Each structure stands twice: as C-alpha cells, then as structure tokens.
C-alpha cells in the first residue's frame, strides 16, 4: 500500500506566491470577506468549535450511562446535556458541516465560476450561523434547555421552565443561515456554470449539493415558522399545540418533521457527494452509472419530503395515513441503495489506492449501509412499534449521521485539505486515525442496537441494571472514538506549517478545482475555463500534454 498516486514532481512543488490565503491580511479582511473560500474557512473553524462542544457533551452522556443510576449528574442535568448535544450536533454541526465548508469552497471551483452568485449573502449566512450559535451557547450558559432536539409539544410549550425560546431562536437563525447557503448554491449551479459545463458534465459533488439545497430552501422555512409558533405559544399562552385549549400536539409533530425528516437528507446528501468524488479519484475511474447517481440525489431530495410521518407512527396518527407513509419511506430508501451499489461497482476494474480519504469512504459505505438498512426496520410499521424511542433509534441515526456523514466529512476534509491549504496532511497518522475512528464507532454504537431491541428507552439518565454491560461497551467505544476525532484536530493544524507541500493536483484528480493552483487565487481562475470533457475523464487527464495549471507569481 504505497501512499499517493504518481505525484507530479512533488519535490519541486512550492506554494504559490499569491493565493486567497495571503491576498489580504488581518482579522478584518477575514470577517468582511466576500470570498467563498475564506467564508468556507470561517465555517470550518466555527463548526469544529461546536463539534468539540457537542462531543464533550456526548462524552458526558456516555460517562453518565456507565452505571445504571443517575449518579454523575441529576436527571434534569442529563436531560439538558443530551438536548444540547442533539441541538448543537444537528443544527450547528452536521447540517452546515459539508455544505457550508467543503461545498462553499468547492462549488464555484467545480462549476468554473469566480465566486458564488451572492457573496454578501454568503457572508451574511455565516453571521446568522454565528448568531444562532451564540444564542445556543447563551442558552447553555443561562442554564440550558431540556426539550430534546425535537421540542415535543406540549412539553416544550407549557411544561418546562428552561430557556426554550432562546434555543428556538438560535435554531431559527441557524436555519436562515442554511436557507441562504442553499439559495446561493442553487443560483450558482443554475446560473454560473462556465462555458461547456453542461448539467451532465457537473461533478456528482455538485449534483449532491444541488439536491441538498432544494431541501434547505423548501424545508427550513417550515421549521422556522414552527419554532415561531412554539415561542409565541410559550410566551403568550396560546394553545395551537395544546389539546386542553383545543389545539393539536400532532400538528406540531407534522410541521416539525416536515422539515426534520428532509433535514436528515440535508445531513447525508453532501456526504454522499463527497464519497462520489473520493471513490472515483482513488479507483481512477468514472463513477459507475453517473446519471443514476446524479438522479438518485434529486430523487432522495424530492421523495424525502413525502415520508415525514414515519417519526409519528405510534403517536396517534391515523393508521391509514401511517400506511401511506410507511410505503413512501420504503420508496425513498431505494435511491440510497442505488448509490451504494454504484459506488461499489466503481471499484470494479479500477486501479485502487488506499489513501486516508478512501479509508473513510470505505467506512462510510459499510456504516451507512448498516444505518440505512436499520432505517428499514423503523419504516416497517409493526417493527417500529417495538423499536421506536429506544436505543435502536439512537444507534440508527448515529450510524447514518456519525458513521455516514461524519466519516464523509472527514474524508472530504482530508481529500481537499491540500487544495484548501496547499499542504498535505501526515499520511501514516491520518490512516491510523481513520482506523481508530472506525473501530471506536462500531464499539460505541453497535451495542446500542441490541440495547434497543432489549427495550432500553432513549433519553434515560438512569436505567435498569440489565442493560449495563452493553452500556459499558458503548462508553468504552466512545473513548476510542474521541481519540479518533482528536487526532485530526491535532495533526491538521500541525500540517498547516509542517505538512509536505502538496502541489496543484496531488491526487491526479480530474475536477476543475484540481487544475488550478493550490491554494487557489482569490478569483479562482485567472481566465474562466472552458469545459471540454466529461466529469471524471481520466483519459483526458492522461492525455493532457502540458500542464495547464494557472499559477500566478
């Protein structure tokens, strides 16, 4: 397993004199920037910050669950901890993770544009995100919120005296940040493609983000209005969601999940987008069934809007309606299967190397398949009766979100690190980190499936002693997992200074972003490129007679 593909003259590579990183100096030049690459970097930092907070909260959860009684913290503290964990991880980490960082950085590069369509809105979106983040942090400092990330009414509206409104407003702002990101992507992809860049020449990364953006702009506003209603109901003592005043708590569930189910696809489609790029590059092959993979992204986005009620199967919805939604859920699972099989087939007759991003991608395929197929358990009506609200669900969504999206995010960060910074990450240690993450993940979350079938309810600070053994495994795994995540947080910053210089195209990849210098210029391309080949055209790359790389200075 030698490391990198034939690196083009790595020894003589040097950092370009001029790049987006050194174009301007000073904090102000970052905080007021319109450059999508700099905004991506701002996002990268802030997201990592919130991930660490969410991770520490996860650590607290696992420590508490080491022993059956609620001994480390009181139950209401525990409730606040997992609520903040869920809120931070979902709204402040996973939803913006790939799109707002890697996507922000790459979409203009991939479609051959100088920037996103609306740079100022892009910056505004970061400020909204930070505003939302600060409100959530404020909630935490003021004493937390204990609604769970799902804000179930009438609990959240009439029965808690924690800072529900502050948290809801934080999410409201973060939601608008995500709307603006989606808006920018859609307009950019429609309107800013360079000459020759037809829809079917777009990298699959762009297709994935296009699908994500559809969900962001159509789903998020419903969450926003729902949170406004929750806040109004709380402050004004109205009863839209309160049955004793004639309201209907299920209406809240409908509106909330109308966003939050599609949102889980916001949390996986960008990851899938990354995987397409990584698998293709390291097997040096065009993605098998390009069109099928492209359309399956859009199919997931569209069908994703039709299945929300599967979160409410036992909550008193009509049984006939549950039937409809179960059926639709089965349909939405199919495009994911299509993707998995196409990626596997991409390896067939490839020329495969095993760099760190590829290892993460393999991790993604395995873990997402498990996570996705256990989603089928939950979509199966009769099975959901037993499994819902148990640790089976906790395991399901950590498999898809952590084993899926987080792995993909790490794959993406490693894959484009040379492009973003101009330097390589250290290869050996990053491979170790990937393996540690994988092992830690399995040990943490696999036992939770068994716990779930045993019936251990989620959101329990204390649990009967029968469940202890598996919980100890889970906590042990989480410690390994923590190390796995800590490592990149250490060696990636290290590599900023000491990493090998990467050169323009260290992976010999075909995307437009790899045909320019790394790190790129502020204006991306000195001359707008003309796309004259299909995506993932490795023959084109091989036949390129001279290096058409644009380095300035």
């Amino acid at each position, binding site marked *: 397993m030698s490391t990198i593909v034939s690196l083009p003259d790595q020894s003589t590579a040097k950092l370009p004199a001029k790049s987006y990183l050194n174009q301007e100096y000073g904090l102000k030049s970052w905080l007021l920037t319109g450059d999508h690459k700099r905004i991506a970097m701002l996002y990268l930092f802030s997201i990592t910050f919130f991930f660490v907070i969410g991770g520490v909260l996860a650590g607290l959860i696992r420590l508490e669950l080491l022993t059956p009684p609620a001994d480390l913290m009181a139950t209401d503290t525990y409730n606040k901890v997992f609520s903040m964990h869920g809120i931070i991880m979902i709204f402040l980490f996973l939803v913006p993770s790939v799109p707002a960082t890697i996507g922000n950085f790459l979409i203009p590069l991939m479609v051959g544009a100088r920037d996103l369509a609306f740079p100022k809105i892009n910056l505004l979106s970061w400020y909204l995100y930070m505003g939302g983040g600060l409100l959530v942090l404020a909630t935490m400092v003021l004493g937390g919120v204990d609604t769970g990330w799902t804000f179930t009414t009438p609990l959240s509206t009439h029965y808690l005296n924690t800072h529900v409104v502050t948290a809801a407003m934080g999410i409201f702002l973060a939601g608008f940040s995500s709307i603006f990101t989606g808006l920018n992507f859609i307009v950019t992809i429609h309107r800013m493609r360079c000459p020759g860049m037809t829809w079917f020449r777009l990298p699959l990364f762009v297709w994935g983000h296009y699908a994500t953006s559809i969900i962001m702009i159509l789903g998020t506003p419903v969450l926003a209005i729902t949170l406004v209603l929750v806040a109004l109901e709380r402050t004004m003592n109205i009863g839209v969601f309160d049955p004793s005043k*004639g309201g209907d708590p299920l209406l809240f569930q409908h509106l909330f999940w109308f966003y939050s189910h599609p949102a889980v696809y916001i949390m996986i489609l960008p990851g899938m987008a990354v995987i397409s790029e990584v698998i293709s590059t390291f097997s040096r092959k065009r993605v098998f069934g390009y069109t099928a993979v492209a359309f399956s992204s859009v199919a997931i986005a569209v069908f994703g809007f039709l299945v929300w009620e599967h979160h409410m199967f036992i909550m008193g919805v009509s049984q006939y309606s549950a039937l409809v939604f179960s059926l639709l859920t089965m349909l939405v699972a199919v495009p994911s299967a299509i993707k998995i099989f196409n990626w596997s087939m991409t390896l067939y007759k490839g020329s495969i190397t095993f760099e760190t991003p590829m290892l993460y991608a393999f991790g993604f395929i395995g873990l997402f398949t498990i996570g996705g197929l256990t989603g089928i358990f939950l979509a199966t009506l009769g099975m959901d009766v037993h499994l819902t609200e148990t640790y089976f669900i906790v395991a399901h969504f950590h498999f898809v979100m952590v084993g899926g999206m987080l792995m993909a995010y790490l794959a993406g960060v490693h894959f484009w690190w040379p492009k973003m910074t101009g330097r390589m990450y250290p290869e050996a240690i990053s491979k170790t980190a990937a393996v540690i993450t994988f092992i830690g993940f399995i040990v943490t979350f696999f036992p939770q499936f068994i716990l779930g079938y045993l019936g251990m309810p*989620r959101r329990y600070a204390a649990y*009967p002693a029968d469940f202890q053994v598996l919980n100890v495994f889970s906590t042990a795994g989480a410690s390994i997992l923590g190390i796995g995540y800590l490592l990149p947080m250490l060696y990636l910053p290290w590599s900023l200074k000491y990493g090998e210089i990467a050169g323009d195209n260290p992976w010999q990849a075909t995307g437009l972003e790899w045909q320019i210098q790394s790190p790129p210029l502020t204006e991306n391309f000195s001359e707008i490129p003309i796309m004259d080949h299909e995506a993932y055209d490795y023959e084109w790359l091989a036949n390129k007679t001279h290096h058409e790389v644009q380095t300035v200075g």
Partner: protein
Amino acid sequence: MSHISPVLWEFLVHWLKNFAIFPPEASTIAPYADALYFALVGMTVTGLALVMTMVLVFSIRYRKERHPEAVQIEGSTLLEATWTLIPLGIFLVFFVWGALLYFRVFNPPPNSMNIYVVGKQWMWKVEHQGGQHEINALHIPTGVPIQVTLISQDVFHSFSIPAFRVKREAIPGRYTTVYFEATTPGKYHLFCTQYCGTNHSAMIGWVYVMTPADYSAWEAGNTSGASLAQNGERLFASVGCNACHNGSATARGPNLANVYNTRIRLTDGSTAIANEAYLREAILAPSMHVPAGYAQIMPTYQGQISEDGLIDLVEYIKSLDSNYRIQQMLNKSQISSAQASTEGKTVPAQGAAKP
C-alpha cells in the same frame, strides 16, 4: 479466577448476571415481532455482506499494484434496474409484513378486557374495571386479550412493555389503545419511552403477568370496593349530570342508556359512533357533536373533571349499555376458562422474570 482476584470475580459474575442480548418473549405478539425482526436482520446481513464482498473483492483484485491501468466503464442499465428493483421488492415485502403486524397491535379484538392507564408526569396510573388502582404496576392474567386504553393528563408519554413488543403513546386529550395477550407469567419492565421532562427515566414500573387463578386472587384482594362504573355513577350524581340525563321523557339531555357503541345522528346531519372517545368529548366539548333533536345547552366540564373521573364516567355510561354488560360477563368467564386451560402447566409466577 475466583482465587486470583475475588473482586474481579464478583465483578464478572455481576456482569454476566446482568447481561442480556435478547428480551423475553411474553405475549402472543412477541413471536410475530421477533420473526419480522429476524427477517429484517437477515436482510441487513445479506445486504451488508453483498456490499462488503463487492468492496473487499474489488479492493484486493483491482488494487493499483495488481491492476495499474483502470478500465473505464460507463455503467449498465441492466445492473441499475437490478439493484433498483430487487431492493424495492424486498422493502415492499417488509412494508406489507410490517403493516399486518401494526394493525394487529393497534386493533384489539372486540372481546378484550379493557384496562385504563393514565400517564402523568411522572407515573403511570392503572385502573382496572373492578376498581383496582395501581401506580407504576400492572397486573394481568395470561391467556386473555387485553386492551389498554391510554390517555395522558399532561404531556406525551409512551407506554412500553418490551417483553410484549408493544408500545403506544399516551397523548393528552385523546384515548389511544394498544392490545396484547400475555403468555408467560413473570415480572417484566414497564417503561415510559417518550421524553416527558425531568423524571422521564423514573417513570418506570413492572408488569406482573399471572396465571388466571393468581390474577383472580389478586383482583379480589386489591379491589377498592367500587368498580369504575360504580365510581362513575357516584360522580354522575355529584357533578350534576343526572339533572339533565335522568332518562325521563322530560329530561333536557338525551337518555344515556344504550348509547354506547351506537351510531348517533347529529344536528348537522352526519353520524358518529358513540365510542369511548366520543363519550369523553361529549363531556368536555359538548358542542362538538350535538345529537339531533337537542339544543346545545350542556355545559363543558373541561378542567373540572380529572382524567380518572372521566374514565369513571365513561365506564358508567358504558355500563348503562346492556350489550356491554354481557360482554363484561363473558370476559370474566374468559379469564376462568383461560385458567382452566392453563391449569395443568401453571408456571411459578417468577418463572421468566428478571429481577
């Protein structure tokens, strides 16, 4: 190992005693659920094995050292169709299978024995027909179909008995039902699985499954003296319902005898079945369904009668129905006949129990 380190030994023994990987099967639903579960596990293992085999075999076979030059392949419509249709077919099988089980769990047979459960922060209050009250405990006989009618006094709760593989949300403002038939005597976990505030994790209890004989004994020993219907009758008089519903021809309200489970014609021309939900709503929001021929003069009792009181009233009105009374009698005899059939193989009450 006990002579190496007694502490470690203790620890291990303790662990192994507390190690479970599969929940007890204690209801007629459980085998159905488990069959479905294993089928789903089978699908997952197969699917995962398939994908992992592809990934592993290709990674080894086509790694760069062995296969330096990639062969570009566009795709294959046939393959796409295969892996679209086969998973779809499999998923649809599970859809049908799951739906069948779902309807079984949530549609109790008509002859089941009805137990009311009220959820409130943070306890379960169980009310048996005979007036036995329990908190965070549920005693039931084996071999009798049981319908639990749930309601919550405040927020969402969820009534979960893993050993029976059933669960149902108790929601405020509306009755929900779940059905099961216990098979194995023993003591099983009862959880609240819907997050309901601070002491959510303390809203737990036990389900005691007993042989019909034991159950009859328990029933006799724990009655509060008045059945739900009798309590209801008292309440009916004390809050003044009988001022209007006294069954006489001049009464201002309709005669409530024999209304239960009949189809009622409403003033707006539609009809409604007077089931438990209807009766409850008739008391709390009388103007929602006004029976034809009556003026809307009944006051609302929203906020004046507790959920327990409402249950009593509903049971009282049901008991005014002769069919229902006959049904109740049959249920009783059912318990004793179930007793007869299991007599020979009575299992000690703690048989399958986990402490």
